[in-house]
């Protein structure tokens, strides 16, 4: 409730203020006057007031005033009636001294309230003699040329360069490339030159510049201005913002205009001539001086410089960060500020390679004013991700040159992370995508990257081949082989001798054992007899076949014997004898042979072996 009341009160206050503002009290006067010249100082009030308090006018002579006048008008719009009235007080003043004077605000009372007017600055310059003599009071504000036409005693006809000229004024002549310049074409007319109008106008071509015109009213407004110590009526014909596109000294071609000036025809007045003066309109062609602009190149430009010169801010936005494949996305970059906005190249964006990208769309909103070209340019990049995945568009950089600091400024957006999911719109394409293979596209060509692995550094020109070590490896390995060979050969030789000895010895040992067996046979000691026979046989075989006794068994012995070319019957007989001995020893009941038979068999087999195995 209290809040509502407060709001209400604020509204009421605002209403009061706006009501109070409806009373306007304005002081008007020329900006420049010549010394001794009469001029008008006017006060306008839109309501009736009393008790006008003039400011201090001691620097001027008050010749006349105040003369008051009143006007009122009633307007009916859509049945709504508004009444406006104005009261004016006019004083005629004359300047006494040269200099710049400021007139403090005047005050007036309206309905018991005091209102103050604005203050004025008036510059007083040295007067021209003919002007001082003129009876005509200088018009306030913009009526100059019209007033001048009415002057009777103006020494017209001398339309010289002092009286009428055009000037192309630029706000700076030393600029960097791309920096904006405000060029104003001004027409200067001396007060006493009657101007009727313009004819052909030839605008400067502004070659070497990119231009943007500032709107000026088609009706030329004249203001008073001091130039080279003289007062002129000055009209602005054209205002243009220039952006230099090349470096060096650029010449702005002269501006040409043909003015129509009324001149009184001076001739010897005869008696029958016209009583009145004759006037004729003459064409006066005026040409401005060429202007030279010195354009410096930008200091060493960064690689990604976009050509932007001025003071800018930069921002980027994307319409969505997650989308489906084959769905269009838009990235928008906005550059706003003051400078050569229309000349900025679209900043390069690095899209992931599989994205289909289109040319950026550029749109600008710019306003040309006395302060220069300002507004914003936006670039819209349309692209279509073709495959699903997570992608990143790296931060987009915008490099501009700031002419006020003479520095390149880099502004960048943040990086955009995109999540693309698989879209389902493949079915209406009618093509089975998985069957269409693509070649790997080569995007660029460059040398391969440096080798990072640990390299083996060697003294220049050195190599293992041909060194002492290289040869010594060969020599040493040969020597080692030779030594091994000799030693091994010797060993083989020795072991060969050993088998030979054993082979030769075998029969002797066997006979010795059999002898012992025959001893047992005589004494009829069956147990000992068979044992010694079998021992003799095994011992003989071991020596003869070079097989250690521990490794020897019947199969091995048989295989070895057969291998050495023994007849199978002999081997079978040997086996039979061994069997008989073992039967006789361990199962005497099952054994049917006699000790004599066994003894003879063993002796016979050994005899055969002795003959055949060398």
């Amino acid at each position, binding site marked *: 409730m209290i809040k509502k009341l407060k709001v209400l009160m604020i509204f009421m206050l605002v209403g009061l203020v706006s009501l109070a503002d409806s009373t306007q009290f304005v002081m008007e006067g020329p900006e420049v006057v010549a010394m001794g010249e009469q001029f008008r100082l006017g006060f306008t009030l839109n309501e009736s007031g009393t008790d006008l308090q003039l400011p201090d006018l001691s620097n001027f002579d008050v010749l006349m005033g105040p003369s008051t006048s009143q006007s009122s008008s009633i307007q009916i719009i859509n049945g709504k009636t508004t009444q406006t009235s104005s009261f004016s007080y006019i004083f005629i003043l004359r300047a006494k001294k040269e200099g710049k004077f400021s007139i403090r605000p005047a005050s007036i009372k309206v309905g018991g309230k005091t209102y103050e007017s604005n203050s004025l600055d008036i510059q007083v310059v040295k007067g021209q003699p003919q002007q001082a003599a003129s009876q005509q009071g200088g018009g306030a504000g913009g009526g100059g040329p019209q007033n001048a036409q009415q002057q009777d005693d103006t020494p017209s006809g001398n339309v010289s360069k002092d009286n009428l000229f055009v000037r192309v004024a630029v706000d700076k002549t030393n600029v960097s490339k791309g920096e904006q310049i405000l060029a104003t074409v001004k027409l200067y007319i001396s007060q006493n030159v009657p101007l009727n109008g313009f004819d052909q106008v030839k605008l400067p071509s502004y070659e070497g510049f990119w231009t943007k015109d500032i709107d000026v009213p088609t009706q030329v407004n004249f203001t008073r201005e001091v130039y080279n110590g003289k007062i002129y009526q000055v009209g602005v014909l054209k205002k243009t913002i220039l952006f230099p596109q090349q470096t060096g000294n650029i010449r702005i071609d002269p501006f040409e205009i043909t003015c129509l000036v009324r001149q009184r025809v001076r001739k010897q007045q005869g008696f029958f001539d016209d009583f009145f003066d004759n006037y004729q309109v003459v064409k006066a062609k005026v040409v401005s001086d060429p202007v030279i602009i010195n354009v410096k190149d930008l200091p060493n430009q960064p690689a990604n410089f976009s050509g932007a010169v001025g003071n800018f801010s930069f921002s980027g936005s994307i319409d969505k960060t997650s989308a489906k494949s084959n769905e269009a996305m838009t990235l928008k970059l906005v550059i706003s500020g003051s400078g050569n906005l229309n000349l900025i190249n679209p900043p390069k964006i690095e899209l992931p390679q599989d994205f289909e990208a289109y040319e950026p769309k550029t749109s600008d909103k710019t306003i040309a004013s006395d302060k220069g070209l300002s507004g914003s340019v936006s670039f819209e990049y349309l692209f279509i991700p073709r495959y699903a995945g997570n992608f990143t568009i790296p931060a987009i950089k915008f490099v501009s040159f700031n002419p006020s600091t003479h520095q390149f400024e880099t502004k960048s957006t943040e990086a955009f992370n995109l999540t693309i999911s698989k879209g389902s719109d493949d079915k209406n394409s009618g093509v089975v995508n998985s069957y269409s293979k693509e070649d790997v596209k080569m995007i660029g060509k*460059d*040398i391969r990257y*440096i*080798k990072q692995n640990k390299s083996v*550094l060697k*003294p220049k020109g050195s190599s*293992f081949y041909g060194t002492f070590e290289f040869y010594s490896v060969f020599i040493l390995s040969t020597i080692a082989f030779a030594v091994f060979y000799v030693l091994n050969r010797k060993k083989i030789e020795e072991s060969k001798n050993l088998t030979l000895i054993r082979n030769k010895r075998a029969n002797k040992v066997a006979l010795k054992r059999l002898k012992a067996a025959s001893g047992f046979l005589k004494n009829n000691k069956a147990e000992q007899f068979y044992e010694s026979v079998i021992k003799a046989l095994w011992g003989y075989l071991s020596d003869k076949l070079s097989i250690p006794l521990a490794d020897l068994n019947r199969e091995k012995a048989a295989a070895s014997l057969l291998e050495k070319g023994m007849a199978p019957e002999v081997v079978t007989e040997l086996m039979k004898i061994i069997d008989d001995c073992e039967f006789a020893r361990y199962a005497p009941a099952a054994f049917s042979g006699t000790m004599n038979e066994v003894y003879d068999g063993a002796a016979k087999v050994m005899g055969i072996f002795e003959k055949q195995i060398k």
Partner: protein
Amino acid sequence: MKRIINTILAILFTVAVFAQADLIQKANEHYTKEEFQKAIDGYNQILMAGIESPEVYFNLGNAYYKTKQYTLSILNYERAKLLAPDDEDIEFNLQVANQKVVDSIQELPGIFIVRWWNAIVNSQTTDTWASISIFSFVVFLTMLGFYFFAKTSEVKRITFWSGCFLIMLTIFSWSFAAKQKSRLVNHSFAIVMQPTVTVKSSPSENGTKLFVIHEGLKVRITDKLGDWVEIRLADGNKGWLLTESIERI
């Protein structure tokens, strides 16, 4: 005595080599940060110390390429290729750099057997061939031992033939090593270093102008006379030019 001095020198070199390994790391880091000029200085410092490796030449070539000094990069790639004739990366980068060379010369094709033979010889470095030679010789001796002391004829047959193969391998790899070494030491290839050189018919300023070659071209030095060298292009043309306009690989 001489042996001892050599050993001491070898040890000193090893110490130096260890110190240079750090320098390589540093130069590589400069390259990674795209400070190519610093990388070039780093690699050159290593080479100044009298030691080398194909990697250093390759990386130096890359750094020169990145600073657009294509002729120097070709020179260094060629030097790397001498040390590592079969490296694919070096071959690739050399081809890329050679695209910057003005002159295009049709190389005379050799006989295919000779080309194959050279390809085999170039497939390994000197030291690799030397090691192969030593290894196969040692295996050969082992086989010989088996052959002598084998009991069965089977083993004897196998070891005999493998032994024959191994001794052949030893001899060939030895000769390949020798060939590679001589290619390294006695090769006569050079790169043209001056932007443009007029080749004369005789070793004097007054010689008839034969043809003009440009920097980056690989030529072979065939003769020498004072300040002048006779060169032979890959297409077989010959002529004389001043020594200062070329640099030996």
